[in-house]
């Protein structure tokens, strides 16, 4: 009996510690980080079919996707950079919708990073000289939260605006489909 109890105690202690550590990461706000020296944007691949060496950035997925503060900063940037001008509040208009499960250029963080940083055909401008890497990763986290690709605990709730679409914390967890525009992968 006592051993079982001890085991149980140890397990619950471990679970508890794990939960707290997860919370630490999810709630962390790393405010004062020195920017990396060198050019503004790491070179990223546009598509797997690209000729030459494929360089994929380190995505630091957890630091952004599973972090409430970074996702929220991404949300702020989304409205400040007027992303809604084309993508609306995720519903899409001139640009494609961001809150559905369909992804023209891939739904992985580094793919979305590439879309934002390098821009895409049909009007998506390149942001790599206007935003920092960190800001783009924050946007990536927010964009992914819109379609339920990031951990639920880190997704934002409604914002103080008119309600036009359901907030990320209500979006069900989605399985993305990479549809691809006809011939999209051939474009540089």
């Amino acid at each position, binding site marked *: 009996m006592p051993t079982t109890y001890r085991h149980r105690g140890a397990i619950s202690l471990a679970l508890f510690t794990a939960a707290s550590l997860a919370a630490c990461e999810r709630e962390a706000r790393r405010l*004062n980080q020195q920017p990396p020296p060198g050019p503004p944007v790491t070179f990223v691949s546009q598509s797997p079919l690209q000729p030459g060496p494929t360089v994929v950035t380190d995505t630091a997925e957890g630091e952004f996707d599973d972090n409430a503060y970074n996702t929220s900063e991404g949300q702020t940037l989304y409205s*400040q*950079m007027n992303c809604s001008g084309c993508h609306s509040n995720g519903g899409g208009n001139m640009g494609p919708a961001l809150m559905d499960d369909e992804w023209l250029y891939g739904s992985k963080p580094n793919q979305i990073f590439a879309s934002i940083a390098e821009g895409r055909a049909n009007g998506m401008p390149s942001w790599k000289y206007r935003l920092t890497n960190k800001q783009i990763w924050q946007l990536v986290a927010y964009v992914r939260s819109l379609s339920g690709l990031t951990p639920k605990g880190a997704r934002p709730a409604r914002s103080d605006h008119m309600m036009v679409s359901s907030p990320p914390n209500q979006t069900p967890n989605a399985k993305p489909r990479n549809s691809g525009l006809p011939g999209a992968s051939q474009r540089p």
Partner: protein
Amino acid sequence: MHSAFDPASPQAHLIASLWWWMLGVGGTIWIIVIATMFYVSFTKHRHREPDDPQHVSEATHRRMERAVIAAGLVTVLVLTVFLGFDYSVGHALAQHPQRALTINVTGHQWWWEAEYEDPDPSKRITTANEIHVPVGQPVQFKLRAADVIHSFWVPNLNGKRDLIPGYVSSQWFRADTAGVYRGQCAEFCGLQHAKMALYIVAEPPAKFAAWMAAAAQSPPPPADSARLYGQRVFLSSGCAVCHTIGGTQAQAFVGPPLTHLKSRATIAAGTLTNTRANLMGWITNPQAIKPGVRMPAYPLTPLQLEALVDYLETLK
């Protein structure tokens, strides 16, 4: 330069006089109560009753009754006078002027946007964190919040007023003494609540008019190639997606407008004096100075940075 004790407007004067009066009366009351406390506790006087704790003589009871009732009446009296004085001051402060220079102030996390109202939209001047006002003329502020609640407060000139999303509140004062008056956001507004200062620059009407005229102009285009390069850095890098510089393509209002950056005494909402070194330090890593501020540390090469600051220094 940042104190309610040092009023520079009739409004702040009224409040300060109310304060000194309340301090005098309140202080006197405090001294009387504490003196009474010492007297009743520590002196050997003849009214102390015998040992039986249940016993209080008729005479003593009457004296206690009289003393407590008298003290209660004095309290009521003092409070009534307090109330009267407060109402008169409040009434005076509530009289908003019929005609006044109107400035729309919007609180952002964590800076102040100020727009001088004018019927002609092209003449509206927008500036940040330093608000020039003419001496001797009433100035009316219309206060709005862009994100969370802030509070507009320049203690030398008037009390504070909250900026609340969904509301437009107003505040006014008339600066009677020329000077630079510091104020600071008074309602907790997040990470950099501590570094959200503003300055009211009160100057004689002629000087103020000159400032207005200058502020309405766009800065001259860059004169030499180094500064031209600086402008290019500004326009093609991240700066222009948030900031405005009059006469250029940079027309964003995410961050403070920089059209007349060098005419301001401080940067980063009153956090740093506006020197070349501070400007460079700020651009290099704002997060080290105001952790959490919305401006990112944008990676620039030393050459770009030099040229950018060269250019920014021309924005007088």
